[in-house]
């Protein structure tokens, strides 16, 4: 006793913090999802009504599709681009650190402002692209165009930050392994695919976990660019939660939706985490 045990007290305030503001809200949202609440009155218990309404609503399924589509576009694009950038940046050369920092810049900026800036870039009237091309380009009001633009803005925000993890991962691979393969006459592309990439597996899954978690709650860029439109193409679950809760004041329904998001992300993370474990075994 004594030494080291008293130290535990130092973690007390922060522990109280996660209990009150991370674990308790998870329980509260479970309870709220079983109630009807319009923000002003008192939540009223209605059993599973919010869930039956949700599962029977086309908007809900559309929102799940929009979320999955963006997830399937954004996460692989982020992983591939971040890795592509990280490979040359993991070597030591003049300017490497500076380029790394420049690539992190979008990650430091306010995502809502990023959405606002991109909304100017792609605006049909007075927008950057339209002005440069000299004709009115209106992709943001087209469902697939909007998905593409939202995806580009989000990938652009995160890719530099994610590449930092790949750089760190690449730096832990002993140089001799690559050199041995080089002596065997393997070309640099083959060396990367057959030697480096398998060794990077744990890092790839780790970054995938981060990218999936980020994307599951991506809100600001989408809000500023499309607000969920056009015709629901970018109406992801995160946007739907906000709109249901604070625009149509159906907080019970928004809670049921929040729980779906929590569970979906939990399952996805678990699957990815098991892959991390499995790839560590090799």
């Amino acid at each position, binding site marked *: 006793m004594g030494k*080291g*045990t*008293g*130290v*535990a007290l*130092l*973690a007390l*305030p*922060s*522990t109280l*913090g*996660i209990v009150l*503001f*991370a*674990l308790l*809200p*998870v329980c*509260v*949202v479970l309870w*709220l999802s079983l109630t009807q609440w319009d923000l002003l009155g008192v939540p009223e218990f209605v059993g599973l009504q919010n869930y039956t309404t949700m599962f029977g609503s086309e908007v809900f399924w559309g929102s799940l599709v929009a979320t999955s589509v963006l997830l399937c576009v954004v996460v692989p694009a982020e992983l591939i681009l971040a890795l*592509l*950038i990280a490979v*040359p*940046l993991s070597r*030591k*050369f*003049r300017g490497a650190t500076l*380029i790394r920092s*420049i*690539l*992190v*810049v*979008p990650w*430091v*900026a*306010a995502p*809502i*402002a990023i959405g*606002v*800036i991109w909304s*100017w870039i792609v*605006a049909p009237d007075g927008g950057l692209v339209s002005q440069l091309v000299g004709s009115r380009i209106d992709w943001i009001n087209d469902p697939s165009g909007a998905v593409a633009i939202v995806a580009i803005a989000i990938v*652009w925000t995160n890719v530099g*930050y994610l590449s*930092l*993890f790949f*750089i*760190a991962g690449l730096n832990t691979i002993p140089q001799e392994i690559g050199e041995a393969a080089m002596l065997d006459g393997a070309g640099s592309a083959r060396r990367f695919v057959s030697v480096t990439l398998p060794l990077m597996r744990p890092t790839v899954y*780790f970054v995938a976990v981060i990218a999936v978690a980020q994307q599951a*709650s991506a*809100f*600001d860029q989408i809000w*500023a660019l499309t607000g969920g439109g056009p015709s629901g193409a970018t109406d992801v*679950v995160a946007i739907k*939660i*906000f709109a249901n*809760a604070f625009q149509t004041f159906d*907080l019970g329904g928004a809670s049921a939706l*929040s729980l779906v998001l929590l569970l979906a*992300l939990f399952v996805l993370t678990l699957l990815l985490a098991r892959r991390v474990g499995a790839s560590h075994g090799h």
Partner: protein
Amino acid sequence: MVTKNAGAPAQATYLLLSVSAAAAVAPFLLSVLTAVKSPAEFTASSPLSAPISPTWDNFIEVITGPMGFGAAIGNTTLAAAVLVATQVPLSIMAAYAFATGRFAGRDFLFGTFVATLLIPPTALIVPLYFMVSQAGLAGTFAALIVPYVLGSPFAIFLLRQHFAAIPRDTIDAARIDGASEWMILWRIAVPLCRPTIAVVIFITVVTQWNSFIWPRVVGGLDWQTVAVATAAVQSQYRGNWTVVMAAATLATIPLLTLFAVLQGQITKSLVLMEA
């Protein structure tokens, strides 16, 4: 040993990296360029051209305009300052406990902190709003910060790595000399990790400054933050791109400037996280 030129990338790679770097900053530079043009010049000139007669009018419009941007800058700065004074020291304490303490349930508890990093913040907005409004705090300054004052799992995660890297002997020697854990933390461990703590403070400020949904939900009109005001300007001045870009500039450039000053240390500390 690095052999000479061993790491220098081929020309094509250099091109890829330069294009990526340019793409990362160009939107910000172009938004600044637009923000200093008059609406007339904006319509008449190319978005890539330098302003002939730069003007502050758009910034004045944003700050003194009806969207409350000026007050929002004050509110956000105040909130960030309070979090630096509360969340940062409390996170430092927790990180030190996890790095150097030996107590039952330590790893489980730390694992719980890390797990909360994966909870999507959007999924907790409704229950947190319920709790804060039940406590009578909706629309107050306290509501903006109360979920965050007691500590940040991200900061704890980052700092723990750095505290754990302090040689065991240094801390044990101080313990044998009879120093209390409290003194070892603030007199020995914290000074040794100063650069990381600077990074944690920076991230705390950035997180508060950039945060949108929570302040949008609980701040009301009295406690708008910069991010909330930026979105308000976007919808109020729809299509008036010079004014909208002035708001975007005010929302991004202060922190990007600070980042430019601290960048070397920040990228280094973020990378260590993974180890």
